[in-house]
């Protein structure tokens, strides 16, 4: 696990109760743009067009909110604390600064996005068929 105290000096420490929404779908990315979970579990909830929802459970060391910051889009998911959660949050420039001083953080971020992408991939099937 990352040495949080060293790496996240610039981050804002937050303690959230179960059920707390860290952000909602459609929100503009705000001050707490990106968070990393120190303890606890957060559900990243993706609304589908048919009304169903996909829930991606995120735990210790996983990052929340990265895709919208990198693409400049509004929130496309909702993040809800499943348990009591301790996390560190940054605004965009603080996060980029943290990345520049902590090599490990970039690895954690990429790993976290990769696991989210893997779940989304498995849910997503476009209606184009290719015969190989």
């Amino acid at each position: 696990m990352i040495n949080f105290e060293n790496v996240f000096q610039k981050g804002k420490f937050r303690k959230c109760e179960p059920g707390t929404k860290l952000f909602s779908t459609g929100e503009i990315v705000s001050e707490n743009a990106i968070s990393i979970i120190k303890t606890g579990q957060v559900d990243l909830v993706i609304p589908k067009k048919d009304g169903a929802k996909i829930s991606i459970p995120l735990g210790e060391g996983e990052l929340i909110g990265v895709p919208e910051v990198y693409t400049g889009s509004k929130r496309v998911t909702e993040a809800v604390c499943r348990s009591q959660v301790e996390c560190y949050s940054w605004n965009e420039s603080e996060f980029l600064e943290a990345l520049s001083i902590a090599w490990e953080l970039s690895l954690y971020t990429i790993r976290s996005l990769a696991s989210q992408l893997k779940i989304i991939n498995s849910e997503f099937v476009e209606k184009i068929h290719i015969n190989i």
Partner: protein
Amino acid sequence: MTDDFDNDLIKFGFEGSKGISDELLEKYGKKYNKNQIIINEGDASDDVYILYEGSCFVLKRVGETYKVLNIINPGEVFGEMAVFNEKIRSATVAASEDNTICLKFPKDVFINIFRIHPRWVDKILGEMSERIVEMVKKL
């Protein structure tokens, strides 16, 4: 740095696509025909690819056919999930046109390139973020 890590790779690390030398292409470049599979879903491998020329489909196997998840354009990195997450390939990547050229880097070489310059962190995070947002919007 490993013995494999020569000046051509360092230049590429600093300059990105502009820094691709003929020697680098010769050493790491691979040419693919249309529909030729580059990465096969379910295989255990951890090479990382950068599309140099042409285009590729990211595909998911559904029964006997493949369905398109995404399209990869020149300059984009793919296969990186196996390096940073797990070795088993979660999707298939195939060339979507003839004469598609990819740079194929073994994991260790790619990690050394990745550490040379912050551009690679930005690039990979940016590309993965775009894929996530794009796919979530289509779900």
